[in-house]
């Protein structure tokens, strides 16, 4: 009797393992690849700009004092930007239109280039009088028709410490 039970149990386990191990796992489609360089090129309209107090975030303060939508406080609704590929896909020119003179923190036109900051890809915007480094706040696919850029304000006391940043959220124009 003991032998029969052992044999049945072993057969059941083997059969279960066989069935489970042979089950085809279906993965969802990987989908369209993300290319920050490809996605950047084109015309963009500024939808919103969110100012974030990194100090309040670090302290875990309420959301109310962590971020502020400053879009309605200046004429951001008329801001557009055009990125034109310079040929190799990772550099070119850019130009903002900003009829309401809303604060942008970067030169209104100039050259852009990608650079690796030892981690994530960053964007360099070089105008006549100033050059700024910009982060991608979010990586969108080209088909998303969205672009999110981040301007950081930081202290440099030995190490870089961001204390406020601005997220520029664009949609394709």
């Amino acid at each position: 009797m003991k032998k029969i039970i052992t044999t049945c149990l072993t057969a059941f386990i083997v059969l279960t393992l066989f069935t489970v191990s042979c089950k085809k796992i279906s993965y969802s489609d990987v989908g369209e690849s993300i290319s920050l360089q490809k996605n950047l090129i084109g015309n963009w309209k500024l939808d919103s700009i969110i100012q974030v107090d990194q100090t309040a975030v670090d302290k875990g303060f309420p959301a109310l004092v962590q971020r502020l939508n400053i879009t309605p406080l200046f004429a951001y609704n008329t801001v557009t930007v055009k990125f034109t590929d310079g040929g190799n896909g990772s550099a070119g020119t850019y130009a903002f239109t900003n009829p309401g003179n809303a604060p942008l923190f970067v030169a209104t036109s100039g050259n852009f280039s990608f650079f690796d900051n030892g981690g994530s890809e960053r964007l360099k915007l070089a105008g006549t009088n100033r050059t700024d480094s910009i982060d991608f706040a979010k990586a969108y696919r080209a088909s998303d028709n969205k672009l999110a850029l981040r301007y950081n304000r930081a202290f440099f006391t030995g190490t870089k410490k961001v204390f406020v940043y601005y997220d520029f959220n664009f949609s394709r124009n």
Partner: protein
Amino acid sequence: MKKILFLMSMVLAGSFAFAQTASVSPSAFTAEDQITITFDLTGQSLGSGGEDVYIWGFVPGCCGSPLNDQNGFGFGNSNPVAKCTRIGTSQKFTYTLTPTTYMNKTAAQIGAQFGCLAKNQNGSKQTADFTFAVDPLTFTPSVFRAFPSKFTQDDVVTFFLDKKLLDASKSALKAATEIYAYTDIDYVKPDGSGGFFQVSQYCEPLDMGDGNYYPGQTTTADNVALKAKDFGNGLYGWTIIPSKFFRIGDVGPKFPPAGSRITKIKVHFRTRLSPYCPFTTGDSGSLGDSFGFPVSQ
């Protein structure tokens, strides 16, 4: 059976008599407070005979302190900067740290607990894990605040007045539906000398003789650039970019010269008509308290 009972009682007695403990001072602390942890290893092998004791800190469920294993150090070879201080000749050891600095994490990342243990240099002996509750940093609502809390003169900054929190004596300001700012700055010129600059209000005269200059107003009228926006629920905000608003580098007799750095912005919320206005009655008790914000360089 007798022997087993004897052995068990000895082990239990030993555990209670020489229990390893850790305490923290102050007992209630936030992640930004400096704390001193005291390990009491009395009666333990660890720390006896002059043996050095080291702290090994961590955030439960997250990660260890970078000091634990930086520069090639690790559990089997403690970092000298993690060495605890022996109290006299006792077997008690202390270590002083500030969690955010020690963990190289923000208060939000550290969360509600900080953990540590004590060990010898090569890690062959160690205590159990000790955890301490970390109090959250609390945001205290105030009548006046600036957003963001740190800013440069080239940032967008909004000064907020929360009328709900205003003192009852400010009855006119509490009742007002139009709120204006009254503002001036202290600044440092490129040559190192100091300066002061004030922006005109509704009715301020263009008085060049008093050391101030009030630009933009040629007649008695509202200076709409000083009008605060109604953010709803009693909250009013006045938004500027300081370097632009205070016209640094613009041509004018009293404008701060190019290259000047604002060191302090003073903002004072008031009703539309100030009691200081000549030829008007103003609103007695309309003025909010004056407050100043340092500007990050």
